[in-house]
Structures are given as C-alpha cells and as structure tokens.
C-alpha cells in the first residue's frame, strides 16, 4: 500500500497526456456509471469528477439520507482503485486515520500500520462528528498529501481524494469544522432532495437490491492520473487569470462578507475551472467556468456578516451577486 513511487507516474514520460476527446469520453463514462446510482443529480456528479480531476477534495453537505455516502461510494467504486471508508465518531482517534507504528515481535522492530487515508479515494463519513483533533489529522493529510508518523513521512498515492460528508452544523452531536479547515476542501456540494420522478425511479430501482453492489469499475487509477495530467495542459489566458483574481478580490471587498476568498481558494478555483474545461472537451478556460464553479468553490470558505445573515442571505446568493459586479475581461488571446 505504501507507494512513494505513485507520484512519479505523473511525470513519467511514458504517460502521454490524453487528448481532450479522450478526457471527455473517460469522464463521461465515469459520470454515466455514477448516475446509475445517483438519479437526477447530474451536476453534482459532474462536480465530483471535476474536483477529482482538480486533485481536490469534496465536502458533501446535506441532511441525512439524501445520498451523500452513496455518491462518495459510487465514485469510489467506478474507479478501479483503492477505496477506504472512515466513519467519523467522537471516539475516533487520529491514529485511526493516519496509521500507527506497532512493535513486530518477529522482526523486533516497529512496523507502520497505515491508517485509513492510505487509499486513492477516502470516504469520510460524517466528518463533523469526530473530535477536532481527529478532524485536523485528516485535514493535514488532505493538504499535504503525506502522513508523518514517528518522524517518518509517507507520501500518499495519486490520485488522492477525500470525499467527506457532513451533516448541517445545526445538527446534534457535531463539531463544526473551523473555517481554516473548511478552506482545505476544494468544493462543497449540497445534494438536495431528488425531485419526485427521480425519487420514484429510485424506489423502483433500489427496491430489490442495492444498485451500488452491481456497480462495476469503468476506470482505473492509472487512467485518472492521465486525466489529471491532461487537465494540467488546459490553457488559461492572462485575461481569465486576472478575471479570477478580480472575482476573489470582489469577495474580499463585499460589504456582506466578513471574510472573503483566500489565495488558496483562487488556486483551487483555477484548478477546478481547468478540470471543467477539460471535461467539456475545451482546451482553454472560460470566464463561464469560473462563474459556474465559484458557486461551489467559494461559499463554504467565506464568512458572512451578521447583517447579511439576519437578512437571510445565503453565501451562494452573495457570491452570485458579487460575480455580477465583476466585468468579464475581453482580453485578446495570448
């Protein structure tokens, strides 16, 4: 499971970047597979794939029973790669996440037992039920893509993606994620209730057996690495880069926000935008990508002013309004 060489695959000259058509075909295949389980939520599925290709982590937030875990599992299962699931509980220990060194009687030596994060896809269920100490252990791994135990640093494999689910913070028995930790998630997505038809279809489909069990992998870790590599090649013009920064700056100036977007959010917005462009089979990023993704990438990072909260404004609304104030650049191709 220990795979320090996994990262090397990316720079391996043998792994030629995929063409954009191949990217679209592959991602379409994965999305189609997931949608067999998650009905009526194509945009959520799409966002999950975008975040994966952007080498980010996804926070799925919603009430119980709307399919948060199912989405995470379906994505994990669609890719033939290592998948670990951690059920966060208040008594979960940091070592359960990262791993622990145990004394091997036979070799008379300490041996590292990797924790749950040593996988390509880690599904963290109900992350806000764990104690802050355990939460931060996971979050460190997410940011640095490495684990340090007893002074030894272990790299995590690529792709590495954490799909954490979270109940709304008002629920009982939760430790809300601090904003500094929320910032590590690339995007937050809300599942939302399925519409009537999707729910009826779900009832008829899920009645006999769990379709999740029948889900076959349609991609591999190797292919996902190639996809990620292809995303790197997507072109971003100076004008679009400037536009992105303008949007982030506008959130910092907005009178309705106490805390605007961080530089990390700029970076992650750019990465997701590139991933989305690649998903669309486009070799360049458009302001449209940024406008669409800002609603998922930014709201969980910003903090609203009390006035805006009293006015019952949601962070998504505020971000949408902020974007409407930023003029789209008309810079010429470079």
């Amino acid at each position, binding site marked *: 499971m220990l795979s320090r060489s996994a990262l090397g695959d990316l720079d391996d000259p043998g792994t030629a970047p995929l063409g954009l058509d191949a990217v679209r075909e592959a991602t379409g295949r994965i999305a189609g597979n997931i949608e067999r389980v998650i009905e009526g939520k194509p945009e959520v599925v799409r966002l999950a794939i975008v975040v994966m290709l952007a080498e980010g982590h996804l926070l799925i937030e919603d009430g119980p029973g709307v399919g948060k875990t199912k989405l995470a599992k379906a994505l994990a299962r669609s890719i033939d790669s290592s998948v670990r699931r951690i059920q966060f509980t208040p008594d979960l220990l940091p070592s359960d996440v990262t791993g622990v060194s145990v004394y091997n009687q036979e070799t008379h030596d300490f041996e590292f037992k990797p924790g749950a994060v040593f996988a390509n896809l880690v599904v963290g269920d109900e992350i806000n039920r764990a104690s802050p100490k355990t939460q931060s252990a996971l979050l460190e791994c997410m940011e640095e893509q490495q684990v340090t135990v007893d002074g030894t640093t272990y790299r995590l494999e690529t792709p590495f993606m954490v799909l954490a689910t979270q109940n709304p913070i008002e629920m009982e028995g939760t430790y809300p994620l601090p904003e500094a930790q929320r910032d590590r998630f690339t995007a937050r997505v809300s599942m939302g209730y399925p519409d009537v038809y999707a729910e009826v279809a779900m009832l008829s489909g899920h009645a006999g057996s769990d379709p999740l069990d029948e889900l076959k992998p349609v991609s591999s870790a190797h292919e996902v690495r190639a996809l990620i590599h292809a995303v790197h090649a997507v072109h971003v013009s100076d004008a679009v880069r400037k536009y992105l920064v303008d949007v982030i700056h506008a959130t910092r100036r907005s009178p309705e926000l106490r805390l605007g977007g961080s530089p990390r959010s700029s970076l992650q917005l750019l990465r997701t935008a590139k991933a989305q462009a690649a998903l669309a089979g486009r070799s360049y990023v458009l302001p449209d990508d940024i406008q669409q993704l800002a609603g998922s990438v930014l709201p969980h990072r910003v903090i609203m002013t009390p006035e805006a909260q009293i006015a019952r404004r949601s962070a998504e609304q505020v971000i949408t309004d902020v974007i*409407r104030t930023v003029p789209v650049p008309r810079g010429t191709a470079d």
Partner: protein
Amino acid sequence: MTVSTKLVLAGGFGVLLGALSLEPVFVNLDWVLPVVLVLAAVLATSVAARRFRGLAPWAPLLELASGLVVLTAVFVPANAFLGVVPTWTSMTDIRELLGEAGYAVRTQVSPAQTLDELLFLATLGVGVVAVAVDILAVSLRRPAVAGLALLVLYAIPTAALVVGIPWWPFVGAAVGYLLLLFVDGREAMMRWGRRPDDGVRTPTFGLLASQRIGGLAIAVGLALPLVLPSLPAGILRTAGNGIGDGPGTSLNPLATLAGELTLPEPLDLLRVETNVEQPYYLRAISLETYTDQGWAPGDLDGTFDANAGDLPGPPPGSPTRQVQAQIQVLDQDDRFLPTYYATRDVDSAGDWRFDEISGTVWSRNDRTAGLTYSVDAAEPVPTVEDLQAAGDLDSEDQVQRRFTALPLVVRPEITNLVRTLVADAEGPYARTLAINNFFTNPANSFLYSLSTEPGTSGDLLVDFLTNRRGYCEQYAASMAVMLRFANVPARVVIGYTPGTRNAGLWTVTTDDAHAWVEAYFEGIGWVPFDPTPLGGGRGIEPAWAPRIDNDPNATTTSAASNPSTGSGAAPTGQLEPEIPISPDSASGGGTGVLDPVTTLISLVVVLAVGALVTPAVLRVAARRHRLRAAGAEDGILGAHAAWDEILATAVDLRSTTVRSETPRAVTRRLAREHSFDGAAAEAIRLLATAEERARYAPQAQAHVEGDLVAATRTVTRAIRQDAGRRERVRAVLLPPSALHRLAHDVAGLRVRARTRLHSMRAPQTARTR
C-alpha cells in the same frame, strides 16, 4: 394615467414654463393666448394619438397638423376653409407673415411690439419645440435629450435681449426639464422593480444620471450670466444723465427722447387732425451744435411771436405743400410746441415764440400741457430732380457755416468712411443720399435697438458705426455728423413720427418719439432724411430718400436717377471689407443679412441639430467599421468587431447589458429575449464561439471558420425584427450604444488626463522626499 400621458404632460408643462422666457421679449402679454392654444392643441393630440396603438407612431405628424390648424385659426382665418382648415391661400398668408416676421425681427427692438407677425413666429416656435420635446421624450424616450429643445426656447430671450435676462424664465425651463426627467426616472425605476444594481448598466439614462445632468445644466445656466459681461445701455448720451425724469418734462431733448422710448407702457401724447393724407413727422426741436459731447440745441431766438403768423419759411419759390393741423395735447408737457415744418402760423394759447434758425416753436413760461392748437405749415416736397439740381452753398453763407461746423478733431474712422462713401458723389444731394443709403442698406447690418453696446474705441460715434446697433438718436446724430463732414449743412431734429391713424385722427404716443436729420439744399430749404430702420410702419419714406431695404431695385434706381454721380450705395461693398457681402446680398438687398440675432439663433439650432444627429452618425460609422473589420483577414479582431456590433445592436434596442456577462451568457439571453429561429441561433453561436476563442483561447485555436459578416447580419436582423417600430426608429436616431461610447471616451480621457497629471507630479514628490 399611462406613462406616456404623464410624459406628454410633463413635457408640455416644461415647454409652457420654458415659454415664460418670451415674457421679457414682448411689451405685453398678448402672446400668451396663442402660445397656450397651440401648446394645448399639440398636447391634446399627443395624448389622444397615444391612446390608440395604431396612431402612436404618427403622433408627431398629427401634432404638427393640429398645431397648424390652431395657427391658421388664430392668425390667418380669413382665407382658411371654415376659418380653421388651412388652404393654399392661407398657407400663402402664413408665408407672407413669416416674411414680415423676418423683417420685424431685424428692425424691432426688445421688448418688441406684439405685432401679428412676431406673435406668429413665437407661437410657431413654441409649437415646434413642443412637438420636438414630444418626439424626444415620449416617442423616443430620451427625456434627457429633450432638454436641448427646451434650451432652444430659453435661447430666444438670450438672443433677443441685450439687457439682463431675468432669472425666472430660466428657472421655469429648468423646472420643466427636471419634471420631465423625474417622471421618466420614476418610470424607469418601476420598470426595474427596484433601484438598478451597480453592476447593471441600463440603456436608459438612470434617475441618478438625470439628476446629475439636470443639476449640471442648472449650475452652468446660473453661473454663465455671472461670468458674461453685462450690457449697459446708452450711447451718444450728451448732457443727459441717462434717462430723463419722465416724458416731456426734461430740459434735455435727447434725454426726453430716450425716456419716452423706454417707457414700459406707451403714453398717448398728442391727437392730430390734418388736411393731408399722410403728414410728415412732427418736429419739437432741432439740435444744431455738435461738440465732442454730442448734439445740443443752439441758442433760441424769441423775436417772432408764433401766433402772429407769416413766419419766415423756406426760400421763396421752393416746392411746398400746404399742411394744416389741429393738435390736441394729451399727456405731453414740454416747452417746445410740436409743429410741422416749415411752420408758417400757429394758433395757440400762451406766449409761443418762433426761432427762425432752428425752426423751433418754444416758450419761456408756457408749456404744452392741456393745449389745443392749430398749425399752418409749408411742407417741402422737392422732386429728386430739384434736389439734384441744387448746388453747394457758398462757403461764406450763414447757413453753410453754421450747419457744417464740427469740432476741430473728427475721428479718422469717420472721415475715412465719409470720404469713401461720397467719393463718386457729385452735388450735395448725391452725397446726402450716399450717406443715407449707408445706413439703410441692409448689407451693412444696421439694427434698431433701444439698448446699445458699449464699444472700445473711446468715441461713441465710432462705437455705433462699428457695432451698428442703436436707435433713432444714434442714427440721426451719426448721419448729421457725416453730412456736415461731407459739407452738407445738417442738423438733428427731435419730434414724433405721425403715429397711428384711427377714424381720421392721428394718435401720437411716446413710442412715436423720434429723431431724424434735416439737410439744407440751396433754393429748397431744409429737407428731412431718416436713416433709422423703423419697424411697424412708423417711418415715412420720402420720394427723395428711398430705403434700399424696401426696394430691391434701389441701387439701380438711385444710379439711374443720378446718372452723373453713379451709384450711391455701391461703394459700401468696398468700404467694409471686414463684412463678407456676397454678390447676391449686395445687389438683391434684404437677403443674406447677417444680424447677430439670426446668427445666434441659427448657431443654437445648428448646435442642437448637430448634437441630436451626432450619435446616429457615430453609430452608422461604427457599424460600417465593424462589419469591415469582421470581414478582414485578422480573425481575432474580426471576432471582436462582429461581437461588438451584436452587443451594440442589442443595447440600441434597449436590451440590458450586464458587464459580467460572458459571450455564452449573452447568447443565451439574446436567443431567449428575441426568440431566435434556427439560422439566427446558429449564427450567434458561431459569433459567440469566435469571440470566446478570440478572447480566451491560445493563439493557435483563436480562429473560427465561418462567415462572420453574414452571421453578424443575420443576428442583427433577427434582433431588429423582434423589436417594435418605435424602438427601431429610436435605435437609429438616438442609439444608446453610441451615447455610451461617447461617455466612455470622455471617461477614458479623464482617466488618461489624471494619469498624466499623476506622472507629472510624481517626480516632484520624489524630490521632496
């Protein structure tokens, strides 16, 4: 009330308030009724036409028609069908009225008499402005631009009044304008449902912008008069301390004259009954002494008792006609008895004396108040031949010496002018006529005005001859000086024009107070000449001094009647090289006159029309430029140009542009708003992709295959087809995209200027640090 009705009423109210600016232009309020009638007709037509959908586009034409009906009914009902419906003859009447109005504008002084032709002109102007405001504010929904039309109203007193303009006409027009903007702003706000966002640019001028424009206009309007120099009246004012203390009571005849002419309401002075059809002017006194202080009466001799009869008259044998008159004094009170020249006998109560040299009847102790008296006079009626036959007086002759006396120094401007004028004239009459023609030739642009402009030459006479604006006093004084320099005995006479005739009685009012010139010819005596361009039929044109402006053939006539001396008026062309005279105007007379009022009005009109047309012209130019660029080799610039044209077309048709819209967002919105068909949707997709790639794609992929020009045409056609007729017309006449571009350019200039200022200042701060 519908929005358009509100706008119509607000616009009408604005025009009505703006029309208040006519008040200082006229002497009384006779103009109010026709103006209100025309305004009411235009507004009612506008409201009614906009009630019916099908009629709305024709509203301006209907308004013009209803305005014409009212004008016809008020001014030329005689030849109209049923008194209201315009006919060919009534239209001819209107054309004549306009011609007379042109003459009245040139000759009348403000405040002007409420002559029919002037009333017509004013009413017509207000009506046209009302229709223009209606078109701009209601049809085209550009109330901010309608301010230009209101400005034209305000320009009338500005152009016509030389004295200070009262503040309230401006406030009236400004209030009307703000009201218009307010109604439109409210309507625009309601259309939005709330205050427009910062990020949203609306093609209408927003409420805030309206207030800013309105505020700026008021500020400029109020500040400008403070900066402009004020124009005090007065020229050639001699011993007088300005205006006298009332009609007929001053000792200074010139001050009396000015006082009478500037009375706010004319007073009836005399009632005259004569035995002749058309009496000449009534004289009160003549001024014979000219010093550098101006004209003054000479010493009066009291030898002759005027009541005694057989007073010394013109030389024996000179052609005269007998004039007898019964004169009743109404509101006049003077020490000089108004009589006809040459007075032979006076029958009046009181001790009235006759001064032979000046021909004045005067009294030491008695005054004219309450008198009724009769006058017998022998009026000189010389023929042109008589006058031409008259030679110069002997230089030792008493009259010649006395009435050609001038100060030692006469300004070279005047002497040179006279020398040029009389260069080809032989005989005193030819010289006199040449000088008279100099004043009456319209090509020389003399203008009648009770207020005069102060000049800079230091000599009032030279100032007048330069500014060419004044009233009888200046004309008479100048002509008399010039005659004297031309060696013709001359004097200035103060008195009254015949007045108005009513049931055989002539009524002379203060408005008829006048000054003119008499010149002496051997064997004939004193012959009157009147160089002043009097309007309203007050002046008399004697056979020996035909006015050039009344006779298109005057130049040739005088040349023909005076073959030995050549043309009297012709030299003016060479004399005044600084005044451009076209060959037409010099020979045609009356046409091509460039007086300041017309010039100013035309300037305002040209500016207003220019300001109105500029956006449309810019828009057409921009479209052609973009389409050419779209078809050019450079795909990137072509895509930008084509896309700009799509955006501009959408903005022109009042589609809302949001700066945060990407090409794809615009495509979606336009396709939705204008329900594009397949071809248009395909075309705009091509254009959007081209623009998107031109903007954001790497160089290698920046180009898109396809005919951008054809696609642009398809899309703009689709957008335009979807719009209403009114919107399309507005998009052509007042395209918001061009207005925005202008505003954008101005803003850009400002930013550039600031940056430059900054960079200029930067080194200095660096040094101080």
